């Protein structure tokens, strides 16, 4: 460890301003501060001591909270493939298949995303921000497993450049970059981002080339490939016809985006985030309340002619990307509401809009992405009104005090 420190100290002058490779100093600093907490001291103009926590620590906690979802996603990718092609695979075969399918997604996500981050830091002479550690972790978890890699690269580039860098980097962006990536892909390449064939690993290749990875055998009879959200259009009977119980949806051995299926894995992440205080429990809770409120209202209005309105409200919590979005995407501290009251309002509408889109927009079942992006847009407005209300309440209080 000491040797590495000495080596860094030795090559530092080369990369410092005025050194031979001085133009690379922001890249160098990024690597250095990644390896070492820098030895910078407080300026003497403010506090002389500072808390041990920094943004890198906060980001790494989020990454850690995503690991259960990732691990489950790896297994589930193999499991779905196994199911679709009737392969009788063992546990490790499924994990290996999922691993091989998911690693390229991560390579693309991090290489493209961090590459752009480094390049823009280089151009602006800024320091490299650690925000992409989380976005890069999130993006592969919210796309279909069969998404073409070039498409993913394009989406990542769009998210980082248009979603973040043009606003000035982490902390300045309006929309959640990972969701922006998904939205870009969804609206640019809907055929690869929705439908019945993109959610099962190897299926796209099977349909075009007649062969799937590691297996030439055909799809089993009665395979549909549709996600539970599609089945849910026919109400609770639609789900049970497809052989899906509430527990299946909760455990997550179903089709869907890579990391969004298992509510159990997501809840483990939620516990980590809430316990460490990194993400706001208020947003998570109010989002759940919002979804239940609209879902419950729909239940009341439902008739036999509208089976999708009859779906019990709590099913919405385990369907699609609701849980994943609520825990990991809606709570992004930069793009969500900043005031505590605002967080309640923001979260409620995220949940409410999600279910509303699901129920009243049969063309596009997954409402989570749009609900969060919409509420990201409105978060500053919510904060504005919360603060105005708070200030005028205070002004009134002061007036009554001073009379």
């Amino acid at each position: 460890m000491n040797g590495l420190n000495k080596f860094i100290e030795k090559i530092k002058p080369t990369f410092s301003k005025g050194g031979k490779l001085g133009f690379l100093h922001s890249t160098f600093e990024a690597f250095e501060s990644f390896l070492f907490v820098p030895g910078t001291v407080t300026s003497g103009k403010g506090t002389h001591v500072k808390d041990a926590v920094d943004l890198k620590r906060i980001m790494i906690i989020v990454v850690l909270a995503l690991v259960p979802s990732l691990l489950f996603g790896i297994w589930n990718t193999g499991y779905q493939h196994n199911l679709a092609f009737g392969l009788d695979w063992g546990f490790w075969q499924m994990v290996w298949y999922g691993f091989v399918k998911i690693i390229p997604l991560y390579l693309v996500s991090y290489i493209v995303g961090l590459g752009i981050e480094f390049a823009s830091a280089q151009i602006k002479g800024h320091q490299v921000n650690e925000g992409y550690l989380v976005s890069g972790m999130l993006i592969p978890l919210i796309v279909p497993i069969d998404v073409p890699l070039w498409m993913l690269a394009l989406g990542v580039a769009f998210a980082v450049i248009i979603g973040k860098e043009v606003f000035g980097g982490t902390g300045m962006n309006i929309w959640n970059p990972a969701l922006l990536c998904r939205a870009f892909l969804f609206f640019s390449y809907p055929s690869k981002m929705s439908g019945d064939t993109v959610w099962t690993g190897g299926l796209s290749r099977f349909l075009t080339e007649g062969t799937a990875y590691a297996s030439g055998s055909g799809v089993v009879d009665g395979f549909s490939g549709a996600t539970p959200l599609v089945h849910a259009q026919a109400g609770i009977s639609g789900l049970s016809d497809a052989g899906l119980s509430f527990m299946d949806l909760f455990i997550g051995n179903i089709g869907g985006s890579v990391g969004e299926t298992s509510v159990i894995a997501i809840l483990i992440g939620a516990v980590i985030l809430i316990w460490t205080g990194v993400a706001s429990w208020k947003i998570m809770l109010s989002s759940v309340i919002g979804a239940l409120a609209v879902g419950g209202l729909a239940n009341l209005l439902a008739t036999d002619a509208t089976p999708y309105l009859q779906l019990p409200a709590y099913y919405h919590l385990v369907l699609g990307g609701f849980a994943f979005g609520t825990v990991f995407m809606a709570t992004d501290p930069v793009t969500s509401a900043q005031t505590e009251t605002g967080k309640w309002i923001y979260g409620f509408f995220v949940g409410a809009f999600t279910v509303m889109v699901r129920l009243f927009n049969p063309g596009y079942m997954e409402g989570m992405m749009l609900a969060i992006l919409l509420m990201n847009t409105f978060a500053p407005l919510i904060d504005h009104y919360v603060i105005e209300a708070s200030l005028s309440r205070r002004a009134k209080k002061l007036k009554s005090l001073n009379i």
Partner: protein
Amino acid sequence: MSNNIELKKGLDIPISGAAARKTKKVIVPDIVAVKPTDFRGLIPRLLVREGDTVLAGSPVLSDKVSPEILFTSPVSGVVTQVVRGEKRKLLAVCIKADKEQKSVDFGTLKTQSTDADTIKQALLKSGLWPTIVSRPYGVIANPNVAPKAIFISAFSTAPLAANAEYALKDEMADIQTGINVLSKLTKGGVHVSFNSENYSGTPLHKLENIVPHIFGGRHPAGNVGVQIHHISPIVKGDTVWTVALHHVASIGKLFNSGKYDVSRLVAVTGPEANDPCYVKGISGMCMSEIAGFCKDEEKTRFISGDVLTGTAVGKDGYLGFFDNQITLIKEGTECEMFGWAKPFRTKQFSSSRTYFSWLTPKKKYDMDTNTHGEPRAFVMSDVYSKVLPMDIYPVYLIKACLAKDIDKMEKFGIYEVIEEDLALCEYVCPSKIAIQAILSDGIDLMLKEMA
């Protein structure tokens, strides 16, 4: 009549090196400095030259804008040096103390029969007027303005702060005189805030002629700004005054003995201090006087004040006018391998649960000056309000200061805070933003624009 206010928000920083309640040595000052930099916005006029002899209480500086405000020498001796910085900015006037101390005799005054104008003149002439700090902005009080009220905090919750009961144990009578004096200067009364922890036990609660308040909770419950916010918030157009308790004692001494006496018990604290305890010192004394406390002078930061709001003065610097505490901490220049990625960092404290220091709530930490990260944009939104027991939005206020938007600064409560009130926000900030410096610039801008 008193009201008890328990503040739930706040944070006591568990730094090691609290001063034991004993007085180790009486410092016979050698060189003492009068520093205009201790006062916000002061443009000083120099009244002495190198080589002049002064008595304790002789004027050394005056305020260029209000020349009746004088700054006087704490000791009798010879002016040895006038220290200037960039653009000839006056930094300090150094005075070498005589062996035998002589004071200007201002004459004793009976407070009961004295009117406000005589009191003002006595304070101005003796150099004790600058002890009165005016809010908003935390500047020296304007003698021509009558304040809404005067606020005094009888306890400090700052990290390792001097204990008021111990540091002022022999000065209760002077404090009472000081309060009687101050009460003549305002119609709104002298509001004194006590700590709920020892309210009934402290000798201070026997003070008369005050409006008592009781505050409980963690830092910054002892900050006078936070107390004012809960007692009677400052709105536009208001002026209130605050005085540090040890300065109230100095004011009392002036009226009781006729002398300018700013000697005080100073707490020498911090992880780098050997046997942290109190010394009998004086305003403006040199840090070299307490060098014996320091473990390693080269690697130590000498702070006049506490670790949140104090000034790094260096090992040859001088104690600030308002400070009765010196903190010695190590310069944290070491790089830590994978620091942020380690699951455990047992030697670091974090108020957030992303580390595990919440498991050891009683542990004290040998903190150093490392920033533990690099500056970033604001990301986390709820960490700041957790340590600020005031009904304001700190992040919005700081952003308004950054944007130099005076309307917004007013709206978000710039009148109610000075740097020390937001110091904890800066401490906990994971983005390592220099909140106090930004606020300071904002206040300077307000002073300039509103003048």
